[in-house]
Each structure stands twice: as C-alpha cells, then as structure tokens.
C-alpha cells in the first residue's frame, strides 16, 4: 500500500510541471497572436481613451512577464480569473459546460470499449477467417476517418435520411432542461429527479454523438485487443486450460482476456486525451453545449482567461484520468511499482 501511495504521490508531482509547461505555452501563444480582447469586448465604437482605460483595468497594458506572474499568483490561489468578454468568473462557464463534455466523453468511452474490445477478441479467436478480415478492415477504416466527418455521416444517415435519432442538442426541443438540471450531468439529474421521460430523451440525444466518438476511437482498441489476445491465446496456461477441458468461452473471457486487458488499460489513459479532443469537434457537429464549443467561441473572442482556464481544466482532467489508469495498472501489475 505504501508503495502505491508513493507511486501516486510521484505521479501527482509530475502533473505540476506538465500543467505549468502547457499553461506557459498557451499564455505566450495567446498574447503573440493578432487580435485584441478589448476591441472584441467593447465593440467597434469605443474611443481610444476608453480602450486604453479598459486595457489598464484588465492589466493588459503590463509587460507579458508581469501578466504571467500575476496569472500564476492567481492560479496558486485557486482562481482561474475573470472572463474578459462576459466579465464573469471563468469558473462559471467552465462549471456549466464541463459536465456536458464529461458525460459525452464517458459515453463515447463506453461505446469505444463496448465495440473495440469484443470485436478485437472475436478477430483473435477467428484469426485469418472472414470475420477477422472484416473486423480488421473496420478497425483500419474507422481509424482513418476524421471524427467530424464521422459525425456528419452519422447525422446525415441516422438523423436525416432514416430520421431515427436527433441531430443536435442534449435534450429535445420541447424538453426544458432547467426543470431537472442540478449537476449538469443530465443522466444523473433525470435519474435523481425521477424524470424518466427526460432520461429517455437524454439517452436518445446521446446516441449519435457518443457513437461518433466511440466508433472513431474503437479501431485502436480492436487492433490492440486482437494483437494481445493472439499473444495470450498462444500462452502455455491457455493451452493447459484447453487441455484440461475448460470450456472455450471460459478460456477466452475468463483467463486470456483478463491478461490481455493490461495494455488495453494503459492505452485507455493515452486515448482519453484523444477522446476529449474528439469531443470538441463532435460538440460542434451536434450543437452539444460543452467545453469544446466554449473553447472555440472564446478563441474567436480572444478571451484569454477563459481559454487558459479551459486548458488548465483539460490538462488536470487528462492527468487525473491518466493517474487513475496508472494506479489501476499498478494495482493489477505489481511490476510497475518496482
């Protein structure tokens, strides 16, 4: 246990320089980019004196280094700052939008694993058959498809031509989310409020965006699961199990898959950042009111504090997920802790 705690402590310490480097890059890039948040904020008609006053008020007239030190001080106090455009705490829009993105990402992850792992296992079991060939072809094709294109295609086929699923938003147009929204996680909110009609509607709206994300990333897991399963299925203990007459299903799912899952869990941590990046594009395609859309809008408006805040939250979130994955990995494979 002590070793695991020491391992977790070490991983947490590594998060600090990672966020620091990322934040420094974003801070500098934003300020050397053309575009002025004060002009964006005040509209086109403010006199120069008003602009200068506003810049001084926001600290934008200071040297970049001084602004950077101020911002780090602010972050150290746990304050992400104030939005320059909407003049509200940056944490407000982030806390409003983050649950939508997490909900979508987690559902995408479920779809991704739900498709990738079973298909990978099947491909390994049916090696060099039509099944194997078909599944590998699927994995290669979806791996190559950009997530926004996948979204548009699913939207056109299942949303427009077949009219089977909604194409935009988190709830139906006639469902007022304000009536049940408490945490921002609509699945949880509708469950706890006992509003099962709204729950059905929420799940219905999640189908296409979650499948868009999940299918696109499932190719990696198909290939990884197949490769690992092929190795494991050749192991002596699998051979021994079969020789003892253990049913094939139990051999594959009870013994082989458990061992093949270790690299898959590692990949899961690495792919989480890809899922979040995919969520940004998917949110735009499906008018999903999450962090991705917020980030894009604020980039256009040069809202420095909000952009920086979103990057920090993304970085922390990815680090947190990676940490959990690593801890799970360390628990199930003691060699990692050595």
């Amino acid at each position, binding site marked *: 246990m002590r070793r695991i705690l020491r391992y977790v402590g070490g991983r947490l310490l590594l998060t600090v320089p990672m966020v620091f480097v990322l934040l420094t890059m974003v801070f500098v890039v934003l300020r050397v980019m053309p575009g002025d948040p004060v002009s964006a904020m005040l509209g086109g008609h403010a006199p120069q004196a008003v602009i200068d006053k506003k810049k001084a008020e926001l600290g934008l007239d200071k040297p970049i280094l001084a602004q950077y030190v101020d911002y780090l001080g602010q972050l150290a106090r746990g304050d992400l700052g104030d939005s320059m455009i909407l003049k509200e705490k940056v944490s407000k829009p982030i806390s409003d939008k983050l649950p939508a993105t997490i909900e979508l990402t987690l559902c995408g992850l479920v779809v991704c694993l739900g498709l990738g792992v079973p298909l990978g296992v099947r491909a390994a079991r049916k090696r060099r058959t039509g099944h194997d060939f078909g599944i590998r072809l699927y994995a290669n094709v979806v791996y190559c498809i950009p997530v926004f294109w996948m979204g548009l295609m699913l939207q056109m086929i299942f949303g427009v031509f077949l009219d089977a699923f909604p194409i*935009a938003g988190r709830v*139906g147009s006639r469902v007022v989310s304000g009536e049940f929204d408490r945490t921002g996680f609509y699945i949880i909110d509708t469950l706890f409020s006992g509003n099962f009609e709204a729950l059905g509607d929420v799940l*219905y709206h999640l189908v296409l965006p979650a499948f868009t994300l999940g299918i696109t990333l499932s190719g990696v897991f198909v290939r990884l699961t197949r490769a690992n399963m092929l190795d494991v299925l050749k192991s002596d203990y699998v051979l021994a199990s079969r020789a003892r007459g253990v049913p094939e299903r139990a051999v594959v799912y009870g013994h082989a898959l458990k061992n093949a899952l270790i690299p898959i869990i590692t990949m899961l941590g690495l792919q989480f950042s890809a899922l979040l990046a995919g969520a940004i594009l998917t949110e735009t395609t499906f008018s999903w009111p999450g962090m991705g859309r917020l980030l894009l809008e604020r980039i256009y408006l040069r809202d420095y504090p909000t952009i920086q805040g979103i990057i920090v939250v993304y970085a922390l979130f990815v680090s947190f997920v990676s940490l959990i994955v690593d801890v799970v990995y360390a628990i199930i494979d003691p060699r990692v802790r050595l």
Partner: protein
Amino acid sequence: MKRFAVAILMSALVLAGGALFAQGTLVYGTTEKVTDMDTANAYDFHTWEIFQNINQGLLTYKPGTTEVIPGLAESYLVNDKGDEFTFKLRKGLKFTSGTAFTADAVKWTIDRCIKLAGDPSWLITDFVKDVQVVDPLTVKFILKGPTAFFPTMVAGCPPYFPLDPTVYPVDKVVKDPSELKDGALVGLGPYKATSFKRDEEVVLQANPGYYGAKPKIAKIIIRYFADATTMRLALEKGEIDLAYKSMNPSDINDLSKNAKITTFKLPGPFIRYLAFNCDVSAFKDKVLRQALSALVDRPDFNQKVYLGQNAPLYSMVPQGMIYATEDFKKALGDGNVALAEKLLKSAGYSKDKPFAFDLWYTPSHYGDTEVNLAEVIKAQFEKTPLVKVTIKSAEWATYKQQWRDKQMGVYFLGWYPDYIDPDNYTAAFAGTNGSIGNGVFFSNPDWDALFAKEQQSSDSKVRKALFEKVQKDWTVEVPTAPLFQGNLYVFTKKNVAGVKIGPTLIFNYNELSFTK
C-alpha cells in the same frame, strides 16, 4: 442492441408525450447568442429582441411598422424647443416581481445605465442631460439639445426600458438571471423569462399582468444552435416551430421551396458596405474611393453570392426608410468600368502601374458567404487592368483591432441600426466622432454641421432636404460604399402565424399564434 431499442422506444414516448403537452408551446431556433442579461450592457440584436419581449419602453412600435405608439406611458408632451419630453405613465402597472411601476423606476433605470457606462450607454448619455420625477406617474427627460428622433429611441432601445429597482443591482451589470433576486428576469413586457441556460435555452412564459394585447402562445422556448445547417434540419424534422437568423443562402433557397414550411421574407434595415480608411491609406484620395464604388456591380454579387436574396443598396440609408434615395445608382452606377478607368487614370494609374491594394474581409462574423463576397468583388474590381487586388482576412477580434489601428484601407462591414432614423445610417459613418468608431476616419466640418442641424430639427421638410443633400454628396466623398440591404427570412411550420418584423427589426412574440 436491446438497450438502444429501449432508449429509442422511451424517446418515442417522450416525443409523443411532448406533442400532447406542447399545446401553446412554440420552439424558436436561432444561431444567435445572448450576451449580458442586462439592458445597461447588452448591445446586440438577439439579446435586445428578448428584452423587447420581456420589457417595454414608455413608447413602443405598432407591431411590424415604424409607427410609434404609447407604451408604458399613455401619453407624452414635448416642449416647443424639442429638448424636454414629459411622459405620463399608465396607472396600476406592476413588474412581474409584483413591484409597482412608477416614475422613480424610470429615473432609476436611466441613472443606473449612465453610472454603469455599458456599451449602449451612449444612446442615453449622448442625448439625455437629466431625468426628473415630476410625480409618481409623470417623468420628464431633459435632453442635451433638441432631438427629433428621441421617441424612436425610447420606443426601441432597451437601455430606456424601465427596470425594477428592487430586483436589479444598482452598481453591477447582470450577466445571468441567477444573479438577480429570486433568480429571474423581471419586466413589464408581454412575456416573462422563467428559465435561462446560456447557449442552450431561454424559456419565456406569457405575463398574465401585461397591460397590452395578451400573448396568444403560452410558452416560447428559444433554442440555440451552433450552426445554420443543424437548425435547418431541426426545422425540417419538426423539432422546432420557427427558425430565425441566420440561414445560409442555399438553405434559404431550399426551405423557400419546401411545401411544409412557410417562408416570411421581410425587408430589413440591416446593411452591408465597404468602409474606406479616409485618413492614412491610399483611400485618402476620394477619386480612388469613387473609382472602386463605380466598379462594384451590386446585382451581380447579389445573384452570385446571395442567390438574389438581398436587395442592392444605392445609399447608406436603406430603401423603405424615410428620405432614402438611390444616388449611387445615378452617380456611379453598377460595374461602371469606363468611369472607374477615367477616375483611376486621373489619379495617375495605368495598365503598367495599376492601383494595387488589399481587400479585407472577416471569415465568420458575417457568415460563411463572406469569402465568396470578397472573391466576387475582387473580380469586379479587376475588370479593369488598372486595379490589382489582394484578398486578406482576419477573425473578428483581429479585424476590429486592425481598423482601429488604421491597418486596413478597404474592408467589408455591416450595420444594424440602434434607432430607426436616417441619422443612424449617416452621422454614424461620416460624422467626425462616429466615423472614428467605424474605422472610416472621415471628417468634414460642413457635414458635422449638417448632422447637428438634422438632429435638432423636427421639421420633416428641413430634415428631408438635409438628408437628400448628404446622400448626394456621399457619392462624391464616398466615405463608404453601400453594397446591399439584407432581407430577413423567418421560416415556420405551416401552423404558425403572426410573424411581424417591420423595419424596426423588433420581433413581437405576442403576435405569434398557432393555426389549426
């Protein structure tokens, strides 16, 4: 798969159920965004539209027209000089919070707006010197000078709409209704806001205490879409009842032909124009400004870029507005290459030494068609070998900074009026102060004097003569070149009626209704 089948089944039930309890609920889709939920700081088309339905002015517009009629005030008097307006308020009105509406609320609102100095505060501070409470139901506006169009500002500009002093903070702009006492927007309009989720939904319910025509639809849900294509699909699938602002030209074309959709095409006071930097660029020379204006072929780009959906504009004052002329058509014409070449040669340019310049556009602020507009205008300019154009673009924040920094010589801009008067289409661009804000940097003392005169005059003959003169002179000085006047398109399901959006751009939701 079974789980998904269950989810689909459940959703079908939800939708079926929705259809039953949706009686009296209209879902309105838009790609616009709400900004600050405070009349003292919001300065954008869509947020104003919401305010125009949950609040009201002392005066108001007759729906779909430019006729100013009594609003929260039953009458008003103007002194002879035209710089004092005294309003008699209606008796017994209450805000949706239950607070009685009095003259104190009117004064408090104006004073607050001045104190907060938000983006639209100039609409008050440029005109109003003081507001005095004469008695609980009488309030007097003392202006800085005679202002002929003051009633239109009181009727249409939300900063003038009275707020409840017991609900709104006096020293802070309200970003989100959750910051208010009881967490809801409070007003005196036909609707009250009951739910607000930025970029997702705004829910309005009929205000039972409204003094005027009662809304015909009990609940209006405004849904926010990230893009026009998704909004179009939602309308075609019946997920929304009405879509307004902004569809792509191809979507407008397709929806107009859709038998299940009703199209309302309305002339709007939104204009687009080419702005010239008249101060530091090559365009300091008005001959070059005239030459480029002559080369613009309005019917051509309107057809190629907008599929004929807008109207060519030949004056900064849009057609349909009082005193509007079409002087650019007469003086410079469309695609007038011969005149342009004559002007360019007089300025010293030739085939060997063409007039080379950058034409700037912003790729998303005015929609996806902006790049096409820039390409077509470039081709029109280059119909003469005496002109060589390089197209450049910058995102909106950068674009605005560049026009302030005088880094762009000629660039595309658009204009939604603050108030419905030709003054707002002329002085805002060619008056010395307004011109700086729009990056035109044009200054002419004679024109400033003319604008001051028209602003102070309440004699329509005098104002007509002044505006006709300035529109004629515009073709000589060409501080800007008018391009087109935007038409507004509202698409609804067949059972929606009552869409009335006049030249004021005010969309009165209480006129909407469902037909059988």
